């Protein structure tokens, strides 16, 4: 391989690494669930991410009322760019906001199930690229 060709390959590799790093950041998707009454909308960094991150706010009707459950909601990346990923909700859960605005906005209002209530709160993401992912799930312990 000539020196010129070697330089070309190295230059392309460098560009590739920069694109890779950029796409890694752009590939993070942030989702915050909100109940429609007193919604708590989170901003900034969580366990990962940065202070200027964009969040997807998914709004549910309160309690077991299923009139506002999301279907095929397009999600944006943490940099605000569009993605191929959509979010839908199925099941018999509820949206609960027991502390109003007085707690961390990311998990202050949450979706879930209750012992005696309908079971199965399922959030389905579609349009993902096959591969391994880390899911950071936020809630009260």
């Amino acid at each position, binding site marked *: 391989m000539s020196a010129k060709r070697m330089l*070309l*390959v190295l230059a*392309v*590799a460098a560009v*590739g*690494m920069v*694109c*890779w790093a950029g*796409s*890694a950041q752009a*590939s*993070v*998707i*942030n*989702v915050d*669930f909100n109940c429609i009454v007193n919604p708590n909308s*989170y901003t900034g960094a*969580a*366990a*990962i*991410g940065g202070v200027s991150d964009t969040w997807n706010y998914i709004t549910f009707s309160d309690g077991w009322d299923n009139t506002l459950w999301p279907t095929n909601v397009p999600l944006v990346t943490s940099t605000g760019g569009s993605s191929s*990923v959509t979010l839908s909700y199925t*099941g018999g*859960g509820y949206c*609960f906001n*027991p*502390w109003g605005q*007085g*707690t*961390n906005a*990311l*998990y*202050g*209002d*949450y*979706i*879930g*199930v*209750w012992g005696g209530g309908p079971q*199965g*709160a*399922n*959030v*389905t*993401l*579609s349009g*993902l*690229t*096959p*591969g*391994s*992912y*880390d*899911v*950071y*799930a*936020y*809630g*009260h*312990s």
Partner: protein
Amino acid sequence: MQLDGTSNSNSSGFLLGSNYEVFTVVVGGSGTLTISANDGGGGFGGFQLTPEPATMALLGLGGLGVLLRRKRK
């Protein structure tokens, strides 16, 4: 850890095992992933999804391959 909504602790900051958990999942050819709360008293308020480094490496190498192939043509 159970994200069971019984405590209002840790209202500021994030502590692994206290107000968030990390799960590694594999998405297959269907491109879908379902996250469920099914423990009879739990729930979650949101999540962050990020590709594992290995997945990003494959995507990066794929992109690099495309660039090199175009250059050869």
